[in-house]
């Protein structure tokens, strides 16, 4: 504890003078490209994330065209996709798989991991905990540029002749290990692995920074039981990332060995392309264990930041404290810990021991408890609020709806016996697109609408935001809800077409509807992209605290410079959820307002620490007591 205290004070002195930082000579290169300012880096992540989201989304539109309108002539895509469109105007079957694979990879890693955590952890951690910047601005910059390098490699793989990785985003060997098995497992797979290795480095650099910053650089008075739930969520996300990503790294490394150096970690007894391979003794299942040891926590890496963002936005716009603050922290912790012990529920029917399946079913269904607690707490927060529907609030409510609808189908899939039938059907596609994909995506969009004024000093257009929300919200449900029915009917995922089977011959009209809804939903995102870039330059000027929010970032100048606060860093006296406190003059009391200034609304136990704040070391932090 002592060490931490000293360190935080050192950081305080080190980052002390805002003016000095502001007047550093900054060239274009150091200000916008190789910037060490967390705010710039977060914008870099955000804009890269939007770019990737558009690519990932377009890929899904192309394969949705194939699924919804199998007879459609796609000749007009030839200028873009070239040889992947056959003579007859059909999509190449292998390229269909490549698109499914790349859509998954891009959305999960490049959009919802880098785009979400990268943006909001970077932007909000220093601003909400009252720090000048991240613990290491340099590592933070490296984190972005490793991500950039990773992006370049992944993007390149889309354009090579043999096509990008095509074995599904889970890249199960032997399919992904053997170029004989499919052309995407050649150079495309190599690039995928290289790109992911770079991505993991980026993610680790970022996560270590987030953890360090949250632990060491909180302003005086800001104990861990006073930080906004966003910070808890980002902190725990980073912890999950640090523990889980290295395992994916090892899996990728062993796969590289199998592919290039003739080892047999994952390969055994294979006869392919007219010859028996020499590999024996490996285990294909081992890879799945390693992959899902990251893969499942990854779901929460994607989801927790969104939940944190939502908690903040729902409380602010309901004008109510978040209900059960400590229970919310508890459930975040519960989810974090449990997320590491449920991975094998992705593998119930891989031939894994049925007994192991039982254990993982048990652990999986337990994780529904903290999730349920979160939902009930959100609902109670809305109850008897005075709710203002900003676009961010709409998206947050949408997120909670997805979290419920998608979470509930998890209870089906976590139950081994039911999973036998539903595994790898459209039911699971519906499940994870709602609970992980759409929910996290809505969290990200909500965050952008909410913190846009802080990022760019201007407001996004609210009306366009409303249209964006309603089209997206209805659209997402129209796309993914019907997939439950298709899944119950047994339709397997990753099928190029269903015409080969009598059992899967129905639902053509449903698939057509889904594809149409997907196209409209995607169109609505273009509206958002327009709103976003237009508002950066032409949006209405923002006020200092447009949402009447309590957290520290709104005490900084409208466009904070490098160092965030001119002069002293604000001190914190209270938790971040004093909304509509009985007796208070306004319906919010920011965290930096001392209790001595609000005698009319103080609860019995609420009073300022004895000594005058600001005296070096005089304040006893809660943490030191614990």
């Amino acid at each position, binding site marked *: 504890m002592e060490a931490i205290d000293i360190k935080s004070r050192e950081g305080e002195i080190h980052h002390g003078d805002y003016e000095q930082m502001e007047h550093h000579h900054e060239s274009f290169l150091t200000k916008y490209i190789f910037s060490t300012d967390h705010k710039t880096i977060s914008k870099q992540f955000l804009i890269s994330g939007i770019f990737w989201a558009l690519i990932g989304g377009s890929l899904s539109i192309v394969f949705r065209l194939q699924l919804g309108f199998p007879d459609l002539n796609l000749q007009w895509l030839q200028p873009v996709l070239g040889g992947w469109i056959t003579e007859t105007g059909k999509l190449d*079957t*292998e390229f269909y798989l490549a698109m499914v694979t790349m859509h998954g990879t891009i959305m999960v890693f490049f959009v919802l991991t880098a785009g979400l955590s990268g943006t909001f952890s970077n932007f909000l951690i220093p601003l909400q905990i009252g720090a000048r910047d991240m613990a290491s601005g340099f590592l933070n910059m490296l984190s972005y540029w490793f991500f950039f390098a990773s992006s370049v490699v992944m993007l390149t793989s889309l354009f090579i002749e043999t096509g990008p990785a095509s074995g*599904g985003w889970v890249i*199960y060997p*032997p*399919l992904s290990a*053997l170029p004989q098995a499919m052309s995407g497992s050649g150079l495309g797979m190599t690039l995928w692995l290289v790109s992911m290795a770079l991505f993991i480095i980026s993610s680790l650099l970022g996560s270590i920074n987030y953890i360090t910053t949250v632990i060491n650089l909180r302003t005086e008075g800001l104990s861990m039981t006073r930080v906004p739930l966003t910070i808890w969520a980002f902190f725990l996300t980073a912890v999950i990332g640090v523990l889980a990503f290295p395992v994916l790294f090892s899996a990728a490394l062993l796969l590289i060995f199998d592919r290039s150096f003739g080892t047999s970690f994952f390969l055994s*007894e*294979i*006869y392919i392309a*007219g010859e*028996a391979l020499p590999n024996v003794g490996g285990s*294909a*299942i081992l890879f799945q264990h390693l992959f899902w040891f990251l893969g499942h926590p990854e779901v929460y890496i994607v989801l927790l930041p969104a939940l944190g963002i939502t908690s903040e936005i729902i409380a602010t716009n309901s004008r109510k404290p978040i*209900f*059960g603050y400590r*229970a919310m922290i508890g459930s975040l912790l519960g989810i974090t810990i449990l997320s590491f012990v449920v991975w094998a529920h992705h593998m119930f*029917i*891989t*031939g894994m021991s*049925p007994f192991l*399946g*039982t254990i993982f079913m*048990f652990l999986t269904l337990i994780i*529904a*408890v903290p999730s349920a*607690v979160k939902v*009930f*707490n959100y*609902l109670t927060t*809305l*109850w*008897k*609020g*005075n709710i*203002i*529907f900003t676009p961010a609030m*709409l998206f947050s409510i949408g997120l909670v709806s997805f979290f419920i*609808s998608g979470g*509930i189908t998890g*209870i*089906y899939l976590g*139950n081994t*016996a039911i999973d*036998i*039938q539903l*595994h790898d059907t459209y039911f699971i596609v519906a499940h994870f697109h709602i609970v992980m994909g759409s929910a996290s995506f809505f969290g990200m969009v909500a965050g952008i609408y909410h913190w846009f004024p802080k990022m760019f000093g201007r407001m996004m257009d609210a*009306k366009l935001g409303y249209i964006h929300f309603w089209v997206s919200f*209805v659209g997402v449900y129209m796309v993914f809800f*019907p997939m439950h029915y*298709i899944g*119950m009917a047994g339709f*397997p995922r*990753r*099928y190029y077409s269903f015409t*080969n089977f*009598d*059992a*899967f011959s129905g639902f053509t009209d449903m698939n057509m509807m889904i594809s149409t809804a997907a196209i409209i939903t995607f169109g609505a995102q273009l509206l958002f992209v327009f709103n976003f870039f237009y508002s950066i330059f032409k949006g209405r000027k923002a006020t200092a605290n447009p949402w009447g929010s309590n957290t520290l970032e709104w005490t900084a100048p409208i466009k904070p410079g490098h160092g965030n606060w001119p002069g002293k860093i604000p001190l914190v006296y209270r938790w971040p959820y004093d909304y509509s406190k*009985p007796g208070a003059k306004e319906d919010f009391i920011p965290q930096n307002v001392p209790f001595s200034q609000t005698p009319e609304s103080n609860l019995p136990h609420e009073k300022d620490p004895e000594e005058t704040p600001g005296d070096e070391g005089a304040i006893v932090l809660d943490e030191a007591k614990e």
Partner: protein
Amino acid sequence: MFNILLILGAILLIVILLVVFRVHTLVNVMRGSDKGKIGTSNKVNAFLFLVFLLGGFGLFFWYSYTHFDYYTLPVASEHGVLTDNLFWVTTAICGFVFIVTNFLLFYFPFRYQYKEGNKATFYPDNSKLELIWTIVPAIVLSILIFYGWKVWSDITDVAPEEAEVVEIMGYQFAWKTRYPGKDKSLGNYDFRLIDAENLFGMDFRDKASFDDFSPREVHLPKGKPVLFKIRARDVLHSVFAPHFRLKMDAVPGMPTRFWFVPTKSTQDMRDELGNPEFNYEIACTEICGRGHFSMRLVVVVDEPEEYDKWYNEQEPWLSKNPHYLAKVPNNLKELALLKAGLDKMPR
């Protein structure tokens, strides 16, 4: 020409939208209407949540009810009835939670929308409530866990001794099956012995291989336990027989298994569905390459007598490919001829 017109039209449309948007913004600025904190939009959004609630649930109930037979598959195995029951019990519980929580989630925004002069209730926590909604879900989930556990352990229990054994092997991009033949014992295999004809890599040093047969169509007896011995020879595949509620991955180098009891013959099913074309099918559900979507295998379920008749009519693989007799060790050649039903060594 038509394309150019299309592009021009699209550009024109975008320009018009942009202009409308800009005018709208400027008008707002002039009116000062976007300065007022909360306008009519708030009411509209609150109302839309109510509309969404009613419309969404309306569609959900309507479709779920009217199309029930369309999206539920008839079940044709003993354990399938159990998993289906579990599915519907889960649906009852989850459906209830789904409806209640989503109802509250959309009703509250409507009911508690911003009103001038209102103040939200300061209600930061309540340990009793937290405790209730931790413990109640935990209890309900435990019930589902124990129910599911029971079904799962029955399904994955060891297959009965008398089960009919069928080996099913996935490869890019088809399934192949092998039956043990009259001796009811499958011969050994080795992936190094695979060639263009011997797809299984059957090992003819093992005398159990001599009468194994590999039919064109898969037949199974109704009402008797069947054990699928599943394997793959190149990449992962997954055996999925939707009507039997059966799915198990096929893994190279690691044989897997799944046993079940078919309860309806193909003919029964045709009568039930009124579809004389009906066939049971096996599909692949683990991505395996370009032909993943075409790995269809037809399964025929016969009455037991029919099945026995069919079984006894099948010719051993060796008798169809007699030149593989050369791979049989000399001391077993006599036996091989006998079991394969051949008269003499082929010349």
